[in-house]
């Protein structure tokens, strides 16, 4: 404003303000661009940071870190001084062998209390007939179900994460039909059957586990004795692979330590080992009856290492031939010297 100009009237002041406002509004697009850019940048940074944080909080096996997950319970029962620690029954009737061996261990009532929920874990991994000995004998599974029912269990599950198509394995093995007829609920390993569990293993920290293993009060392992291409044999400890979903490749690296790691995670109440028929070659799949040998034997114990050592002998192996037995003993899971246990052998 020059000296010659009259003093501004109220209207002029107003007009000047309006003009100033317009001038300011003419600058606005540049300001807005910068703000928008800043906003986009910040949003990108926050979103990117969140993604990075999410990735950081997830462990390498794809499970979320720092989340409170259920843990597997300890399903064992206390030792009774002087009680039989291992029972072996031989005879042509598999169900009778189960009854006699369990009875020698003190009866199923020693292991399962009235009202408890029990999961029975046979090997139902393969699309094979009972005669082909790739799965647990269905008569053995059915008898275990009957004994558990007679002990007063409120719920009995029979389950396994099959390797071949579950529908085929559960049917062809004869286990689904036999277990249902004996009163069990059969759980097939479909996508809804698994729960994420903190297994606190050395190789596996978090795992997807079939839900009955999370919910059950007692766990009974019912493996079959087989030769195995990679581990040498699959019996009690190796049978826990069938508790998990989707880890097959990973768990076959460093096989012996993986078996011991898994066996350390789950502490079963009892193991009833089926050696009615054993697979001597081409395991774990089998197929040819030429590879099968009738042994008509059932062995029962709470010591999985001892049972695996006993099973190794049936396959013509020494316990020291099998890395998982050696490592299992080192890890304190049991003793390979099963003959030093208080054992009762029942002839046919």
């Amino acid at each position: 404003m020059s000296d010659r100009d009259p003093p501004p009237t109220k209207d002029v002041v107003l007009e000047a303000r309006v003009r100033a406002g317009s001038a300011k509004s003419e600058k606005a697009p540049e300001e807005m661009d910068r703000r928008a850019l800043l906003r986009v940048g910040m949003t990108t940074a926050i979103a990117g940071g969140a993604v990075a944080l999410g990735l950081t909080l997830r462990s390498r096996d794809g499970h979320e870190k720092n989340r409170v997950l259920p843990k597997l319970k300890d399903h064992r029962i206390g030792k009774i001084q002087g009680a039989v620690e291992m029972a072996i029954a031989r005879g042509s009737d598999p169900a009778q062998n189960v009854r006699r061996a369990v009875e020698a261990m003190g009866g199923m009532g020693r292991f399962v209390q009235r009202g408890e929920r029990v999961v029975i874990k046979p090997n139902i991994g393969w699309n094979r007939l009972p005669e082909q000995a790739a799965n647990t004998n269905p008569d053995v599974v059915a008898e275990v179900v009957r004994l558990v029912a007679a002990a007063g269990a409120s719920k009995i599950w029979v389950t396994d994460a099959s390797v071949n198509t579950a529908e085929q394995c559960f049917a062809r093995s004869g286990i689904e039909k036999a277990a249902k007829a004996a009163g069990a609920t059969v759980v097939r390993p479909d996508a809804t059957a698994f729960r994420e569990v903190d297994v606190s293993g050395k190789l596996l920290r978090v795992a997807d586990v079939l839900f009955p293993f999370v919910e059950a009060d007692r766990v009974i392992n019912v493996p079959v004795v087989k030769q195995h291409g990679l581990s040498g044999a699959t019996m009690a400890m190796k049978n826990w692979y069938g508790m998990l979903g989707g880890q097959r490749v990973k768990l076959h690296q460093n096989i012996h330590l993986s078996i011991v790691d898994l066996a350390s995670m789950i502490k079963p109440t009892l193991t009833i080992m089926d050696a009615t028929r054993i697979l001597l070659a081409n395991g774990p799949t089998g197929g040819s009856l030429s590879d099968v040998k009738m042994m008509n034997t059932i062995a029962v114990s709470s010591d999985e290492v001892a049972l695996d050592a006993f099973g190794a002998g049936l396959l013509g192996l020494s316990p020291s031939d099998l890395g998982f037995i050696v490592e299992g003993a080192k890890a304190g899971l049991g003793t390979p010297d099963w003959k030093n246990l208080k054992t009762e052998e029942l002839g046919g």
Partner: protein
Amino acid sequence: MRILLLVVLSLIPPTLIGSLVWNGRRALPTEHATGQARSTGQEADAALKSLFETPLPGAKIKEKVALYDEKGLFDYIDGAAPIFIERHFRKLAATEMATPEGSDLVCDVYDMGSSENALAIFTAEKSANAKVVEGWPEAIAGSMSFVFHTGRYYTKMTAFDAKAEAALPLVARALKEKMK
């Protein structure tokens, strides 16, 4: 100054993500397939699948033919996979078949990549009790099973009853013809 701050902020997440990926989330290094190798692989897959494209005498396919690669093999044969992989296993075609009477059998054809590898796995899996099929030294017949190797293929068939067992040699010979 603001722009500089903006650039720095924007660079943090990609750097962090990139670092995570570089330090542990990347796949194990694999040999990149050349165009020719890829093409050979596709041709081999096609040849493997073609074994089941036309009907075989004695049994027909119940559902589909499933193909398994090295990684997927564990999902089909579990701990038996490494002895195949050690012998340069390439791919498996597996299918369930049924005889006209409705008896089931399983047919697994392993593409071992070469006749030497096929012979190697045949020898490794041959059990002491196996009986060589008369007039066909590359085949063994066990009770409920029939196994043979021809060229790059190693074939294992398993029957689930006597009728299916009786059909195994017929299906095996038809497959052998196709494998030539």
